């Protein structure tokens, strides 16, 4: 599978400051999250991939195209929704999106048609002839999304897409992103400092801290793995119950107070544990699924060497 983004010892300096420090990674997911605290280098990474910053050392590739030598082609394949307000206030929404489509190379008629479609798609169909300057913050965010997808990019960069949105607007934005991810033939790169946004939209996460890669995780695998680790609180369990669990193929580690930690093998369902407990007349009072959520992974990644945040 061809990587969407390949970072090859990428280093970016702004003035004297090293903002991205020798990043090396190969990201293949359909939707990739860039996570990190403010100032970690998420936006700088996106800006570098778009060719706004020249790498001081190393390079990066977007769908196999080197950003140093083929920046124009890279920009032809990508859509970009910036973090800050970006628009032309005096233009009507549809005219602005049409302009952006034409700059991406769409002929006039197709650009106009796609601009209308994009506006309806993001739910702004009724206000598309109004000047962007009169839009609410949520509408402006949706307009930014419309201009990013109007030309049908292969890779979509979304920089903090839910910034400043109220809960219903945020929900709508997340739904749209999920819909684009699931139905569109494209890759999503979502940069956010909001764990929930990334967790809801992405299947791979690159966590940045101080311009370096702090962690990389495949959320899909994590979710799958989390389902296997269980902790049972039982009453009446004895060695026979543990042995029966082992017979099912579970790895077990009995603890104090009737607690049993176990790893569920493939093909064994939780229902079978209840059946076994019923046969052994053991009460299962509680089952904890180990939930090593993105939050845990994030905070673990943010921990410095001395263990203090």
């Amino acid at each position, binding site marked *: 599978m061809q990587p969407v983004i390949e970072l090859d010892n990428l280093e970016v300096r702004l003035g004297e400051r090293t903002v991205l420090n020798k990043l090396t990674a190969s990201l293949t997911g359909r939707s990739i999250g860039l996570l990190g605290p403010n100032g970690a280098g998420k936006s700088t990474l996106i800006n570098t991939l778009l060719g706004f910053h020249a790498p001081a050392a190393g390079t990066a590739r977007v769908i196999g195209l080197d950003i140093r030598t083929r920046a124009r082609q890279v920009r032809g394949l990508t859509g970009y929704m910036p973090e800050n307000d970006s628009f032309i206030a005096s233009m009507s929404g549809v005219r602005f999106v049409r302009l952006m489509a034409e700059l991406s190379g*769409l002929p006039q008629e197709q650009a106009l048609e796609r601009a209308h479609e994009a506006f309806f798609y993001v739910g702004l169909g009724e206000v598309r002839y109004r000047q962007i300057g009169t839009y609410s913050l949520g509408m402006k965010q949706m307009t930014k999304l419309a201009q990013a997808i109007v030309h049908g990019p292969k890779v979509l960069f979304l920089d903090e897409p839910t910034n400043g949105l109220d809960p219903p607007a945020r929900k709508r934005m997340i739904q749209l992103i999920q819909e684009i991810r699931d139905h569109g033939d494209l890759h999503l790169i979502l940069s956010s400092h909001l764990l929930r946004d990334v967790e809801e939209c992405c299947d791979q996460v690159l966590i940045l801290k101080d311009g370096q890669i702090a962690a990389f995780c495949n959320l899909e695998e994590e979710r799958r793995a989390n389902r296997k680790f269980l902790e049972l609180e039982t009453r009446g369990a004895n060695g026979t119950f543990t042995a029966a669990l082992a017979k099912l193929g579970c790895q077990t580690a009995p603890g104090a107070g009737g607690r049993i930690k176990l790893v569920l093998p493939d093909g064994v369902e939780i229902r079978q544990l209840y059946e076994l407990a019923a046969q052994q007349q053991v009460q299962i009072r509680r089952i904890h699924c180990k939930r090593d959520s993105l939050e845990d992974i994030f905070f673990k990644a943010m921990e410095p060497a001395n263990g203090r945040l």
Partner: protein
Amino acid sequence: MAVYKKTYRRYEGPLTPERQRFLVIPRYAFEEMRRSRFLNLFFLASFIWPLICALVIYLHHNLSALKLLNLDADKLIRIDAGFFLTYLGIQSMGAFFLAAFVGPGQVSPDLANNALPLYLARPFSRSEYVLGKMLVLVTLLSLMTWVPGLLLFALQGYLEGASWMAANLRIAAGLFFGAWIWILVLSLLALALSAWVKWRPAAGGLLFGVFFVAAGFGGAINGILRTRWGNLLNISHLIGSVWVSLFEEPMRRGAGAVFFRVARGEEIPIWCCWAALLGVCLICLFLLGRKIRGVEVVR
């Protein structure tokens, strides 16, 4: 056009040639400008002087009309290099006002609204952006200066005969190149100021400042230091000198064009004028290069 497809789909159709995409910017700019009544009236008014000039040329060659108006052809303005230089001076001053009105609206709104990342995140370079914006001014100013100028020259040549045309080709070249130099300097200055001053009226005012305040400052230097080199700060003097060299050298007769006077005894070497104008253009390009970026880096 039916708007019924409310799902996301990729665009699979044809794309426009990359080298032509910068033309999208002037097309949108002209559509915007068409809505300004003031601009339309100003632009139309800018053709009054070329029409008067055409009338003068016509009268020069129409004896019955002269007789009817009881005019003597010799007493009318002579149709020579001075005539065309005066035409260019008046039209160029009109072009300056137009540039001061249109120029600031080119880059400053994009910067004020942070729209540059959206332009430059596409297969569209910084130079194409500047070229597109500049083309707006170049087109408007060309329509005001050298295009009617060459039409007047052609009219005079048609009425006077091919021999006059052949003998005065220098005037045509002067009109064309002289106007282009002015257009380039003016467009670059207007764009550079528009890029650095985000408030539109201030950018327009600054363009006047660069011309008139710098000229006044140059004059003060000349007066205090008893030198001519202060004229290097006077853009109208520099342009006037270049025009005189294009139209009249080596047989200089007049004192430059109206609004672009080059007083006798105050001339500076022509190569210095060229170098100063080149310097102005390079500074403008440098200023544009600093500001026209996808993201502004605060160091």
